[in-house]
């Protein structure tokens, strides 16, 4: 697992209080990990803070699963 993926997992475990084993790439924040809309906003903010990367709102709306978050961050970090 990439360093980015591990950090993303850690943030999700910390913020949503879920087990690491539940945080699979396919897992949806709202449907599988018990997040509500505010939790999702907070997660995006935590990613922005952790990776020092502003995520525009229209992009943030598309990040609905763990895998999509990792994919987005891996694509945009370091560019």
């Amino acid at each position: 697992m990439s360093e980015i993926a591990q950090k993303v997992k850690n943030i999700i475990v910390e913020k949503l209080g879920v087990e690491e084993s539940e945080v699979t790439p396919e897992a949806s924040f709202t449907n599988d990990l018990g997040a509500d809309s505010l939790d999702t906003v907070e997660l995006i903010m935590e990613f922005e803070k952790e990776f020092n990367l502003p995520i525009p709102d229209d992009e943030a709306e598309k990040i609905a699963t763990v895998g999509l978050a990792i994919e987005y961050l891996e694509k945009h970090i370091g560019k």
Partner: protein
Amino acid sequence: MTFKRVVVTGLGALTPIGNDVPTYWSNLAAGVSGAGPITKFDASKFRTQFACEIKGLDVTQHIPRQDARKMDAFTHYALIATDEAIRDAGVDVETLDRNKVGVIWGSGIGGLKSFEDEMIDYARGDGTPRINPFFIVRMIADSASGQISMRYGFRGTNYVTVSACASTNNAIIDALNYIRLGRLKMCVVGGSEAAVTRAGIGGFNANRALSERNDSPETASRPYDKGRDGFVLGEGAGALILEEYEHAQARGAKIYAELIGGGMSSDAYHITAPHPEGLGAFLAMQDALEDAGIEPSSIDYINTHGTSTPIGDPQELKAIYQLFGDHSFKLNISSTKSMTGHLLGAAGAVEAIAAIKAIEHQLVPPTINYVTPDEEIDSRFNLTANTAQARSITTVMSNAFGFGGHNAIVIFRKLS
């Protein structure tokens, strides 16, 4: 129409002198101070460096961590005190008609630390707002009653009263009236406050309300003593289960006392200073006696507001004398703030519990740290100085006054 009778069937407390009701009461009876140096932040540059903090509390023992982090401490305190009160009341939440159970909570300020932390964080940035989505819901005062309702599924009347240090008594009186009218069968009432923060201490220092006796925190809260120099900030929560008498009887509940009346008034005088002759206090106590339908001579004990401020303490006693006449010297008076400090919006909650436990144990908790009499205060008052006093107690009054000139008084009586 005939009003329903209202009784108290459960108590919960999280205080600077005990994290549950039994510990709180035994320390009240023993005259223990909850004051000590501030541990919650570095207070070395503040005029006041001590407070009555909650001690040894692990919030996650009571509230799952991922939920707890979305709440301010004043809401944690509210849930923890409510849990104890519900357990104490012995109610089976599942079998209650929860649409008829309300929550009316009091808080003077709400989530002060949440506000403070978020704005400090913002001020350290470059001006781009990165406000946490839970910021508002952590901060707003009504989140306490909202969270209690969600935890238990209580779907009746739900809100928070805000009248500074009178907040909880206003909550108790509102619930009393709803139950009297048959609008609710049961109501969780109480109050919580968590203002031992930089803004809380700094703000009350700035308006010169706090004691600055840094060399002796445990003797700083000294209501009625000549050397009093301000209140000691406390934090915590108290919760009471109010219930329609017949409802309580039908389920075989233990009944602590009957809530027989409440009185309210406003000083209409000054935003912080009480009326010099205690006019607002007098009117509220008179209103409470009238609401309860009793004579002044029925009162055995008054748990006073008595915050340990130079001007506040004497005016309350003046009002008591004006209303009670010579009976003022027969009843017991004590300020348990001498031990707990001043819990602001939660003061009425923990003091109502003190008053009710006084009835249960036939014991008046003391006013500690009373050393030097003040010539401004009539020496005939029995201030229950320093040591608890056993006496026959049927009816008690609990007083609360708040910045803004709000006065709210409640009266409890042993069930007859």
